[in-house]
């Protein structure tokens, strides 16, 4: 009675299938049998699952099937030049001008002429186009491309039906089937870059388009990487994005990872982070969301080596009818790991924020330390916050906890500031800034933290020194 065989298909679900049928011979890697097989397998997975809807537990608060009207045609790379001004316009000068090694993925393809391939090579990192890589797929990437997003442990891993949303993920399947480009970044053992790597995604000038890209990052033993991903539009009339980032963090590596999403108002942003962390990794992730009409950020973390510490935080600043959903599945498969999640949402007008985080501690993962906190500040009557912090714990010697709060600006605090002569709008902005600041503080690198603090101030419409 449940999935996997779906009888009925909505129009958009069918359109996506059709676009695969029309495109698959032209997609990168079509000549490589392994890639072609991975793609058709993925499309089959998608065909049986359909688009997620609210009856799928993990998509309870984001009914994608109902919200997507039609599937936009896949973006066609034009190869047109993109200058600094355009990047600045898309990302805002604060983010665009961060000192970094730049990687540009525009109109669904890797743009080597805009990327610092050579400089990265000199610094010890290998950067390649995903499309090229797919033509001659290295053995170690095969298993990465085969990832379905399925939960490996916990209750739902044992549950065969597709209801729980813990089975194969249709968005990941679509990404595998349809991705047109992206980048592969590798850091050898012990390589430490002097500047962040900034991967800029730009799409959608003119007609509405879909863009499906992937970024794969593999770090060697003891490597250190500061990775920034930013997503922006080029002023087009509509964008449906399916972006996937896969990171395999080698033993003892240290990764700072930030995602900044500032797409145009009509954009639909579907993002997946698949993180595999080996032993003694220090991973610090951050997601900043304030663009698009609909954003869904899936983060899946697998602890595969002992002694690893993961810290994830997110800030979503939403207005008008924006909807942003951050959904995490954190699987502690091994002992002695630590995970921390902190989510902050500022919700104005009729926007809606969603935060779901499931921490699973497998039977053997003793001495796990897991904490999560989801907080929302509702600035207007029509805003809505839904949260579901979940713990599934099968090991006894652990310390796990979660918290969630939802409320409006504290009148006492406001009064305190106003009593000291700060006008109300500034006082409110100050309190919002402080609220978001707790998440921003988690960003280790100062220039980036300052940039995002500035972006927040811009969003609030105030100047803060």
């Amino acid at each position, binding site marked *: 009675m449940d999935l996997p065989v779906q009888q009925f298909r909505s129009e958009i679900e069918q359109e996506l299938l059709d676009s695969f049928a029309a495109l698959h011979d032209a997609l990168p890697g079509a000549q490589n049998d392994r890639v072609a097989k991975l793609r058709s397998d993925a499309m089959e997975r998608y065909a049986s699952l359909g688009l997620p809807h609210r009856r799928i537990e993990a998509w309870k608060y984001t009914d994608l099937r109902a919200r997507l009207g039609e599937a936009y045609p896949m973006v066609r790379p034009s190869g047109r030049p993109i200058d600094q001004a355009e990047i600045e316009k898309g990302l805002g000068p604060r983010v665009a001008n961060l000192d970094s090694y730049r990687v540009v993925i525009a109109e669904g393809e890797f743009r080597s002429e805009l990327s610092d391939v050579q400089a990265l090579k000199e610094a010890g990192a290998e950067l390649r186009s995903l499309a090229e890589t797919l033509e001659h797929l290295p053995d170690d990437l095969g298993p990465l491309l085969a990832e379905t997003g399925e939960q490996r442990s916990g209750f739902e891993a044992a549950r065969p039906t597709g209801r729980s949303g813990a089975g194969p993920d249709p968005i990941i399947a679509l990404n595998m089937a349809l991705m047109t480009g992206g980048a592969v970044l590798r850091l050898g053992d012990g390589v430490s870059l002097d500047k962040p790597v900034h991967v800029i995604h730009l799409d959608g000038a003119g007609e509405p388009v879909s863009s499906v890209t992937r970024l794969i990052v593999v770090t060697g033993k003891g490597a250190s990487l500061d990775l920034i991903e930013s997503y922006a539009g080029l002023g087009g009339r509509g964008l449906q994005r399916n972006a996937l980032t896969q990171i395999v963090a080698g033993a003892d590596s240290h990764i700072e990872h930030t995602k900044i999403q500032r797409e145009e108002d009509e954009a639909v942003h579907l993002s997946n982070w698949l993180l595999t962390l080996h032993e003694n990794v220090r991973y610090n992730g951050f997601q900043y969301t304030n663009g698009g009409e609909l954003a869904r950020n899936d983060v899946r973390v697998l602890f595969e080596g002992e002694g690893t510490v993961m810290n994830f935080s997110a800030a979503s600043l939403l207005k008008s009818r924006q909807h942003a959903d951050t959904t995490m599945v954190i699987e502690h498969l091994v002992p002695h790991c630590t995970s921390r999640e902190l989510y902050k949402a500022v919700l104005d007008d009729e926007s809606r924020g969603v935060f779901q985080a499931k921490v699973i501690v497998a039977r053997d993962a003793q001495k796990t330390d897991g904490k999560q906190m989801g907080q929302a500040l*509702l600035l207007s009557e029509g805003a809505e916050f839904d*949260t579901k912090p*979940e713990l599934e714990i099968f090991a006894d*010697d*652990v310390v796990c*906890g979660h918290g969630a709060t939802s409320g409006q600006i504290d009148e006492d605090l406001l009064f305190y500031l106003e009593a000291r002569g700060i006008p109300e709008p500034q006082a409110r902005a100050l309190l919002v800034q402080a609220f978001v600041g707790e998440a921003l503080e988690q960003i280790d690198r100062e220039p980036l933290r300052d940039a995002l603090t500035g972006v927040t101030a811009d969003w609030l419409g105030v100047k803060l020194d």
Partner: protein
Amino acid sequence: MPAVEETVERVREIDVDKYKYGFSTDIESIKAPKGLSEDIVRFISAKKGEPQWLLDWRLEAYRRWLTMSEPEWANVHYPKIDFQELYYYAAPKSMDKPKSLDEVDPELLATYEKLGIPLSEQKVLAGVEGAELGTARPGVAVDAVFDSVSVITTFQKELEKAGVIFCSISEAVKTHPELVKKYLGSVVPTSDNYYATLNSAVFSDGSFVYIPEGVRCPMELSTYFRINEKQTGQFERTLIIADKGAYVSYLEGCTAPMRDENQLHAAVVELVALDDAEIKYSTVQNWYPGNSEGQGGVYNFVTKRGDCRGKNSKISWTQVETGSAITWKYPSCILRGDGSRGEFYSVAISNGYQQIDSGTKMIHLGKNTSSRIISKGISAGHSNNTYRGLVSAHRKASNARNFTACDSLLIGDQCGAHTVPYLEAKNSTAVFEHEATTSKISDDQLFYCMQRGLSEEEAIALIVNGFVRDVLQHLPMEFMAETQRLIGISLEGSVG
């Protein structure tokens, strides 16, 4: 601490030995034919001499049920129930509702006495047999439900003086049809969920309470449920109405004999609180949890919901869950009236192969409503214990307040403790706070207690009792002492 072989042994021994309510009463009974069909629904209805409207109501529910499928989302695993293999009605043969205690089958009375529930009013008043319930304070009226029928309801006369109606629901259908018709299914509609719909079709007995306007119920009311027959399902239905300004405290207790097969208990409890009324509902659930191999035990699939219909009304749920092989219940409050308040205090203890998926829903609809959830889950042995709860504030529920704390304690490394809270705030003035922790008993605390001469098990019982104190203090006096002992028993042998 890894579970040593010895511990596993202990758990095995204790599980079977310690369930002291596991005896069965040898009593002749009348059963409906096995299986479920429209005829069975008619049979039950006829057996109870119900009016046509109620039969129609049941049949509608039954037809609805046929179209529904079993819920699968809970964190519990069990083989599919064959609903055709159950008896839906079982009543002691000697039972045509007796007029007084003298007419009750002595075998039945003996059963209840053995369970520590003296039904004789004199004895209760004398407090002689009440030792089992701690300091049995005189003045607890009991409705005793045995399989599908209510055996006797005590203190009815005394309650009548205060205007309180306390009787079995079958009786209420006859004596107060207007009240039953008005409120039955108004909180849990027949189409609510799979088990509630099944219950609506085949419910047998349960208690009915009506507290008139402005009355403070002079004594605690309680119902004691006992499943005795083999392969029967118990489908009781309880309806409590507190009219304007009324107050009632109601207790519920349950036990069942030890049997190899699983027994189904699918109850529906509906509470209605009108303006300024307060209902305090306490449960000590101690159905047979199954043996140490996880065989047998009661499937407890219960729908409990309270409707704070009036202004400034209050409903409070307190539950101590130690029994049942599988528990699936979410006592909820619909905070409809402005200024209404809902509370939920829960201790859920699982051992052996028990599975618990329980929690609450606080649905804030009215203005200035508040709710409080305190949940303590303790898992030991091979059990899994899930807290699942929803707190939601609707658009118009301005100034809704909620505080939730759920803590889990794990004893042993083969068990699981899980938390699945849902928070939905659709109103910016709503303030929700939720916190949850999971941990094991700290070695320091254990060491401290043992150093002072307590055995490890005693020390654990002491620490656990401290852990659940917040909840227990909300139980009526009658249950507190008993519950503390129960917690000790449920955890014995779980030293990990």
